[in-house]
């Protein structure tokens, strides 16, 4: 664990490295899921659904993924990609906490809460 020093820059570099790694895992994971879906789609020429239908509920997407339907896997990968920025905020809170930067734990938590409110408004409002 880094000692408490005045070298904010060094601390920041460490915080950024942690977040960078986790973000990388998230991005690579969503890319792999999207890639598998795309390969199945192109190889079979079949989206797994009738006509232009796209699975739009979490249940349908997960069920379709289990059945190896191309569009379901592609949607799952896309959803994982959408979550990567949220993941970034969550990990940032943890990283600032590790660095004992309470001001930024508070600021980043505020961002997460506002983001959650936005998600709720988005889900119910339209």
């Amino acid at each position: 664990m880094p000692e408490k020093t005045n070298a904010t820059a060094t601390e920041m570099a460490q915080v950024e490295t942690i977040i960078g790694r986790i973000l990388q895992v998230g991005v690579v994971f969503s890319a792999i899921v999207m890639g598998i879906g795309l390969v199945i789609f192109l190889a079979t020429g079949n989206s797994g659904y009738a006509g232009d239908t796209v699975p739009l509920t979490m249940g349908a997407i997960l069920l379709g993924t289990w059945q190896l339907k191309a569009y379901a896997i592609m949607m799952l990968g896309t959803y994982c990609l959408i979550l990567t920025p949220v993941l970034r905020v969550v990990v940032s809170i943890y990283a600032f906490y590790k660095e004992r930067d309470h001001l930024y734990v508070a600021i980043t938590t505020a961002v997460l809460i506002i983001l959650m409110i936005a998600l709720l408004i988005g889900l119910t409002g339209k």
Partner: protein
Amino acid sequence: MIQTALIMIGVGIFAGIAGAILGIGGGMIITPILTLGMGLNIKYAIGASIIAVIATSSGSTIAYLRDNVLNLRVAMFLEIATTIGAIVGALLTGVLDPKYLYLLFGCLLVFSGWNMYRKLRRGQEVLQRVEPDKIASKLKLNGTYYDKAEMKNIDYQVENVPAGFSVMFGAGVASGLLGIGSGAFKVMAMDTFMKMPLKPSSSTSNLMMGVTAAASATVYFFNGSILPGIAVPMALGILGGAVLGSRIMQVLPARWIRMVFIPIILYIGIEMLLKGLGVHF
């Protein structure tokens, strides 16, 4: 079908490289290609471009975090303004006439383009005040980044934090209400108003863009605006392009990036002014 996928991967790579270098979302590149070039319904084009923003953001942020280019504190602090702004913007849909926002932001972007041009001529990239800005010091916003073009660590200061915060709030309102310009406004707030150097501004904008876009992306995801056959190959292309672009950006001299940025920011600004004045083309 394979052809469509290949085209989208290609478009994605291009948009990813450009977006990562300039700190702007791919929407500006993606939307016209999809609507004008491929005749896609605007609804799906918007869905694709919001995915493009997130892919650009996440793809480029990996390198920008690792190579210590972006400023995480500035990002998180300003993110409060953009996310609240985005909510306000979404709530104001139908209440506020977008005309005024187009005019306001058109003017701001043109001003910002002019200001960037002046910066370019003076050749001054980094703010070094004898007396650091009080708010910036308190919030620990001043930072350091490693410039691979100059091969050295560059310390920089920021100032005008309240102004930058306000512009960010406005940028959030605009992106929530109009669904546009998430990146260009952010770079403008940091570069023009807070006097942050261009490379940290562009990379920090990249990180922030994704967070702001994630909120609205969920809406588009569940309302059927995402066409997997289009969005997925494009997103994969963008991820690759953005990883590449985030490396290219670091070795480019900041002046070059600015030279590319100025015409783009002027173009967006003038387009918005015309829209605000009711001129369509």
